[in-house]
């Protein structure tokens, strides 16, 4: 009995070894990441980032695999929930990089999580292309393995200031969320507005999770500014939109930073209500055939639209990684050097990095118009005309 089992065992082992050696060349490329599937970061991560990661891996594998210097190998994603906790982010990437020794990594969602991974990325030599991390502080770390895809606050706020100047807007009121994001955007806005001679008549900030901003909006309404800018997160964006409508606060320009680019903004508030609202965006499916193809694929795969801001940056980051691996292989140092030293074609146009910052994609202003978040400024990047002044709330 034991001998028969023994023979079976040996045969199986030999067969396995033979099969293994036959497949050895086709071992998958393991790409690891931790991302928020639960917790406060999850809402953003699951709209903007992880769906793109998964879709990209599926598309790549459907085409035979990732091209590594001429040879195609399948991609295997190794993803975990970071529970929106910095400590879990750190621990998971430690595991991915040192125990699992994955070939490449993809970044987590948000500035805080990216900060947490950066030292590890440098220590273990894993390049990271981040579509949801912004801020001078991040770039100030001068981490050679970190590449920020989003346009930095100064660019986006300068674009807004230019737009306002071009429409002869003289006064503005600004509120911002009490977070690094809000503060950096506010700082960039103040500089840009000062440069263009736009006077800020009211400036207030509020904590995350605020449930009522009507008193603040009423105070601002009384000052009658030409433009209203909320440097807000999605829940506050929804809140100020609804409450501004309630009190019939109709400035000529109404801008809410984050959340306006999410399809749910248009769907929840209603396309008629959001008409004319401006915010942080970068693209829409009308920009190019490639953008349309990406949009359609996303809708087909996930039954929901990608957002009009960072979703495209996430996809662009994956395109860049793909092109880099094709030319530089899986030597991570070589991949990093290739990313740092070349220009890439992506669905949001050409991208080149300098000191980790994407210096190619210009700052733009987007606006809801006819059910789509059009890019309306600067004129050379516009996908549609701007609505000025913003029509009264419907």
């Amino acid at each position: 009995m034991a001998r028969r089992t023994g023979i079976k065992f040996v045969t199986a082992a030999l067969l396995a070894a033979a099969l293994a050696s036959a497949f050895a060349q086709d071992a998958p490329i393991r790409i690891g990441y931790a991302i928020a599937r639960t917790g406060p970061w999850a809402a953003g991560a699951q709209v903007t980032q992880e769906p793109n990661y998964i879709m990209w891996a599926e598309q790549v594998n459907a085409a035979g695999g990732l091209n590594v210097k001429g040879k195609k190998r399948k991609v295997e994603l190794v993803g975990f929930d970071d529970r929106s906790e910095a400590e879990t982010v750190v621990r998971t990437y430690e595991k991915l990089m040192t125990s699992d020794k994955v070939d490449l990594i993809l970044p987590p969602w948000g500035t805080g999580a990216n900060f947490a991974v950066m030292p590890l990325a440098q220590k273990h030599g894993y390049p990271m292309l981040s579509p949801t991390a912004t801020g001078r502080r991040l770039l100030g770390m001068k981490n050679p393995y970190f590449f920020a895809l989003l346009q930095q606050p100064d660019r986006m706020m300068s674009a807004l200031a230019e737009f306002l100047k071009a429409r002869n807007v003289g006064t503005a009121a600004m509120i911002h969320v009490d977070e690094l994001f809000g503060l950096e955007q506010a700082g960039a806005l103040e500089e840009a507005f000062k440069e263009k001679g736009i006077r800020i008549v009211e400036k207030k900030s509020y904590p995350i999770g605020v449930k009522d901003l009507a008193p603040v909006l009423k105070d601002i309404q009384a000052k009658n500014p030409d433009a209203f800018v909320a440097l807000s997160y999605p829940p506050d964006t929804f809140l100020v939109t609804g409450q501004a409508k309630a009190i019939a606060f109709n400035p000529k320009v109404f801008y809410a930073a984050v959340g306006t680019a999410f399809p749910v903004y248009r769907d929840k508030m209603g396309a008629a209500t959001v008409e004319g609202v401006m915010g942080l965006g970068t693209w829409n499916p009308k920009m190019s055939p490639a953008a349309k193809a990406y949009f359609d694929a996303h809708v087909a795969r996930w039954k929901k639209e990608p957002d009009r801001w960072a979703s495209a940056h996430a996809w662009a980051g994956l395109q860049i990684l793909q092109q880099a691996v094709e030319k530089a292989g899986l030597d991570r140092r070589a991949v990093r050097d290739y990313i740092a030293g070349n220009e890439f074609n992506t669905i949001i146009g050409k991208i080149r990095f300098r000191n980790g910052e994407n210096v190619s994609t210009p700052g733009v202003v987007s606006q809801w118009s006819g059910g789509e978040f059009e890019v309306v400024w600067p004129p050379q990047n516009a996908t549609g005309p701007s609505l000025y002044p913003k029509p009264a709330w419907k």
Partner: protein
Amino acid sequence: MGFWLELAASGLITGGIYAVVAIGLNLQYGLMRIMNISHGEFLMLGAYLTWLAYTVLGINPLASLLPVAVALFLLGLIVYALCFRRIARTAPSVEVIEARSLLVGFGLMFLVQNAAYLAWGADLRGYSFLAEPVEIAGARFMSNRLVVFAFAVGLSLVMLAVLRWTLIGKAVRAMMQSPAGAQLVGIDTTVLHPVVFGAGLALAGVAGGLLSMVYEISPSMGEPYTVTALIVITLGGLGSALGSLLGGFILGLVEAFGMHFTSPSLKMLLSYAVLIGVLLARPRGLFSR
């Protein structure tokens, strides 16, 4: 209307929202000393059910409130039977009941939240209902917020009336005062406890349904509401239905006026300062029995 009145009205309306969230939790704690820290998760379920009914079946959210209440009541009976009945039976003291039900509450919180993530994904959802402003005495308010306020007051008054004048309400109050005494006069706790627990969950679900008209929903929306509910019922006095209504109003007013005089950033500081202050003066809350 006058600036101050309008500010006060705004605060009361927000306070009504806080109160409606707290009613169910107060019932469960007041009677059974069950600190249901997963309260917000059932509020979240009510919100999702209402949203589904509206976006998929086209059912008016206000019409969904009753079915949602019934569904969550039944869920409450099941949850009580599976999770809390044993604690009541085996715990040697009230403190132990509180402690163990707190732990079970955590477990439920993880469970229900994660189930929601799996079922509906982490994305923000929402719909627009009664989002038109209405003008009252020269001041403008959002219709849906007014509706929530009306329900908050209405439900609280109904709750107060039930507790005071109906037989079952008297039974509940008797049980709150003296469990042993109540049993001696024939009040059946084995029936009453699950019913009250179910009612608590049903109220959470209704609160969720109402809130879904005003705010966006996500699987993680529950926790902040649990926190708010805890503050409100602590402020008002644990177990007091009137207390949680008034506690909610007070909180809303403090926030509204605080935001105006200082800045929105300080509103939380003010709220907590008020809470700590109240508890220093009256350690059992404002209206405790």
